[in-house]
């Protein structure tokens, strides 16, 4: 083991005079707290669950930043987009679909507000509507994908097809996961799981849903309109 704690003799003498006193710190050190002082226990500004969710969304944002970055590299360096022979993306239907998703964000917000005011029925109604709108979005996306595939747009159709299906597909998978989460929460809500006092699960689900909607509001102009 370690031996030889070198202490100046003068200091030892001082220490011997006041053996049990709490030490006096020199200026410049951390301001000590007086003996017996208990700092007040502070409630965290953001709860663990919400903070963890925010970190998860930061991870997701960077994941999509990578995919979107790849798309932009190809989009901005090409002279004609779509490349000759490739189909145009369906703008009109997707505007409609964007509207659906924005409406779902509103219904999600209403669901959260309802349970904050203690309304179980409002929560179940809002969650159901949100899940329905999300499913509609997925169904429209799916049918449009089938149409595009019939027009010859596949993963193998150069970078145009590859970036489209990868980027929009990854978003679609996230919407699907969010809809499944919504459905679970909806079933729980119908069984009276949540209350005015206890509805952290609703807030987390809302955060994720808002992320998925917000992400679409970035992807739609970048991929469809630009």
């Amino acid at each position: 083991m370690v031996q030889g704690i070198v202490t100046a003799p003068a200091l030892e003498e001082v220490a011997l005079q006041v053996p049990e006193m709490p030490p006096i710190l020199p200026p410049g050190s951390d301001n000590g707290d007086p003996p017996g002082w208990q700092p007040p226990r502070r409630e965290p500004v953001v709860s663990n669950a919400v903070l963890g969710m925010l970190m998860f969304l930061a991870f997701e944002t960077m994941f999509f930043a990578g995919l979107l970055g790849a798309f932009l590299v190809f989009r901005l360096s090409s002279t004609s987009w779509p490349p000759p022979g490739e189909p145009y993306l369906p703008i009109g239907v997707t505007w409609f679909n964007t509207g659906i998703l924005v409406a779902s964000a509103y219904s999600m917000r209403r669901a959260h507000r309802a349970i904050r005011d203690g309304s179980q029925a409002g929560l179940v109604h809002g969650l159901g509507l949100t899940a329905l709108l999300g499913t509609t979005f997925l169904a429209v996306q799916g049918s449009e994908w089938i149409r595009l595939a019939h027009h010859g747009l596949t993963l193998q159709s150069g970078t145009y097809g590859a970036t489209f299906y990868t980027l929009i597909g990854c978003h679609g998978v996230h919407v699907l996961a969010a809809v499944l989460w919504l459905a679970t929460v909806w079933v729980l809500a119908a069984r009276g799981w949540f209350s005015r006092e206890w509805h952290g699960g609703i807030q987390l689900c809302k955060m994720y849903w808002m992320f998925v909607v917000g992400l679409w509001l970035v992807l739609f102009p970048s991929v469809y309109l630009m």
Partner: protein
Amino acid sequence: MADPAVMTAGPAVHVHHELGFWRTYIFSTDHKMIGRQFLFLGLFMLIVGGALAMLMRWQLAWPETAVPGFGWVPEPYMVEGIIPPNTYNSLFTMHATIMIFFAVMPIMIGCFGNFLIPLMIGARDMAFPVLNMVSFWSGLLGGLVMLAGFFVPGGHAAGGWTAYAPLTAKAIYTGVDWGQNLWNISLIILGVSSMMGSINYITTVVNMRAPGMTWFRLPLVIWSLFITAILLLLALPVLTSALAMLLFDRNLGTHFFLPEGGGEPLLWQHLFWFFGHPEVYVLVLPAMGVTSDVLSTFSRKPIFGYRAMAFSMIAIAFLSWIVWGHHMFISGMNPLLGTAFMLSTMVIAVPSAIKTFNWLGTLWGGSIRFATPMLFALAFVSNFVIGGLSGIFMASTPVDIFIHDTYYIVAHFHYVVAGIIFAMFAAIYYWFPKIFGRKLNETLGKLHFWPTFIFFNGVFFPMHILGVGGMMRRIYNPLQYEFLQPLQPINVFITANAFLLGLVQILFVVNFVWSLIAGKPSERNPWQANTLEWAAPSPPPHGNWGEALPVVHGGPYEYSVPGMAEDYLPQNQSRRPSPTLAKRHGPSGGQVTA
């Protein structure tokens, strides 16, 4: 965000109760057990990665001769003990991959992050214990998938750890089919694993500090792990997206990185290094944190410039996002852009130098105890200086264009990244008593340190000379070039040192295993250190603190306080405010009561 209903839904206080074997040792949610699991995973993979390096060194010293004792390895891995070129490519690829992702990261971040964060901030466990368990098990799954790559037809990934496309984007280019796929899948799994870890670390440090543990009373190792977690959280998903695209290129017929379909090979390099450079700091920041704690404790002096240390780590983390282009100077990038990357890279030398000089300032005038952790921490600092200085050479484009992809680069990054192993050993020797409740043998530790330090430099210092002499990185047989033949004795010298370096690690293994079973039981605070983990029993029980959480009264590095009998002052020991401060700030002694 401040929704009262959510705030009350935090984790309940862990009540101490008896758990069965499976819940205690295997599917444990206790941060200390998960830390130990990460330690064993990392040490095992360290041996695997080291063995791969030894095979590589044999080939470089005595090219295309049979490796003694390896005649049994079947074709196509080896031909009567001779390492064929495709196996050599797998060796250097997997050496780097395993060392970076499955040795250094599990030990420095997985083990010490998990073990130290709750103990040093005075919490009972992580914020999300179950997520923590899943993080380890998915990390292990990633490791198994990675190891499985050795046993699939075509061998393991052979495109370098950087996996540059298009080399890796088509099976025919390297002859590796499923090896590269498994490599991608494994790293995607690891990305998810480290995401869960990062979320846990960040949330725990932000929300679960003990009463009185303010941000600037956090030990620097916690600062480093916190910053590392943020880097990991934001950098790895970018790699994940690139890995997914590469996987699609290989298996679904996309052309993200394949020029024949309009793809862009440089896109891979940009995405990879946008992740890759922060990753380098992910590896080195915890090592810097460990070093700061060990140097202060064994110098019996406060760390010099505590806040400067914390802020310079933040600066390094920030700068790491804007320097990735320095890996790509020869990719044909616009010289103006290259200059911008050169300048941003050189700026990193400033916070790094602040840290180095603060370490020296900490040592200056201290009552230094040359215990084993201290020796390893000092070795980390000295190696880091060598690696850091050679980094400045490479940052300047005119020099880099000459030495790019030579052994100079190999020397540089081993001095920093393999130098981390010294901080890792420092951490293991320092915290082993707390992790396992027994002490490592000091004599064996010193016997382990000196040859490790000497042979480490014997391996990596001559590589600078090889690099300036023109020897290429990743070359299979240097003898095929006439101009490299005179350098061959250096290669033999390096290999001899590498074997000796590997050999002396047996001392560590012996020490580790023996001390684990029969080492001297450790008291609470064997090193007379201040930080909070030493206030808990060794090893700490489930829940860490018994009835009440510790209350923190001061900073982590109050050593050799004048007028004290002891030369250390634990953070949870109450103290009297200075009369000088009381005069200056009123009767509260200038203390912050908010």
